[in-house]
């Protein structure tokens, strides 16, 4: 009987070591919530900046943005988008480190590096792609492209962390594909994909794994 329980104990340890060395489990749901809020705040800021043109109607402004007078706007939008991106990366790093410290794990493990690389390759590709679209004046495709490539990054990275990340990635891809059909609604889809979905995902993850 005693042999039996130690074997069970041993197997449990083996399983957890296998899991810990192949999955990065320090991601925090809270980071997702803050990333989502930042994305929505960014969209609101972009909206306000462009609203100074006088149009108070959302749809009018969106169609306005997609067609003409765009030259004035890009750098403001890019700065805000980059600020959201940097803030998100910082928040993800901060909360992961906090989670790792809490459970006595390290943050720079081999699997963390693999996670980062598998996320960054699609993400950086999407970023470069968006810049090219911008110089080609294909603004209406930027938000869909960002959503799709971000989704691909998450799907890719999902192999090295919680499986929910994989499904979040699928949702982002679908959102990006749908967004292509509604060129004037870029900001709305941005807010759904990078905002609401992150917040929903974050709350779900926090309740499931951290409370």
């Amino acid at each position, binding site marked *: 009987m005693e042999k039996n329980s130690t074997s069970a104990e041993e197997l449990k340890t083996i399983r957890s*070591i296998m899991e810990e060395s192949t999955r990065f489990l320090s991601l925090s749901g809270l980071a997702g919530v803050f990333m989502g809020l930042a994305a929505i705040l960014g969209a609101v800021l972009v909206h306000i900046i462009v609203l100074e043109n006088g149009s108070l109607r959302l749809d009018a402004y969106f169609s306005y943005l997609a067609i003409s007078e765009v030259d004035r706007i890009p750098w403001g939008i890019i700065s805000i988008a980059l600020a959201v991106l940097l803030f998100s990366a910082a928040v993800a790093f901060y909360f992961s480190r906090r989670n790792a410290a809490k459970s006595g794990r390290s943050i720079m493990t081999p699997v963390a590096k693999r996670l980062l690389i598998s996320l960054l390759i699609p993400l950086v590709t999407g970023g470069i792609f968006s810049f090219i679209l911008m110089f080609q004046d294909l603004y209406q495709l930027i938000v869909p492209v960002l959503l799709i490539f971000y989704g691909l990054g998450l799907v890719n990275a999902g192999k090295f962390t919680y499986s929910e990340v994989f499904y979040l990635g699928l949702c982002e891809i679908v959102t990006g594909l749908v967004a292509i059909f509604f060129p004037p609604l870029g900001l709305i889809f941005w807010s759904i994909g990078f905002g609401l979905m992150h917040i929903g995902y974050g709350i779900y993850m926090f309740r499931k794994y951290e409370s």
Partner: protein
Amino acid sequence: MKDLIAGLNKVFESRIRLGIMSILIVNDSYDFNNLKETLNVTDGNLASHLKALEEKGLIRVEKHFVGRKPNTSYIITENGNLLFRQHLKALEDLINAK
């Protein structure tokens, strides 16, 4: 009862060795420092167990340089993979036997 214990390999009786094999069976390769950190053991202790596993042909060592720093990685051998799987199977059988 004898059959049940037959698959259990004496080489894997130490917890540290079990830990090393658990990591190497699911990762292509893993270096010394990361093994040390994941398993939370001292240098000397880890080194002696690695040596033992290497001598039995269960793992192999690969030395290379990362920049200027020497780096030692460990990779499970085919034989090590087979024997560790048998060991796991034996543990499972033991539990299910009751």
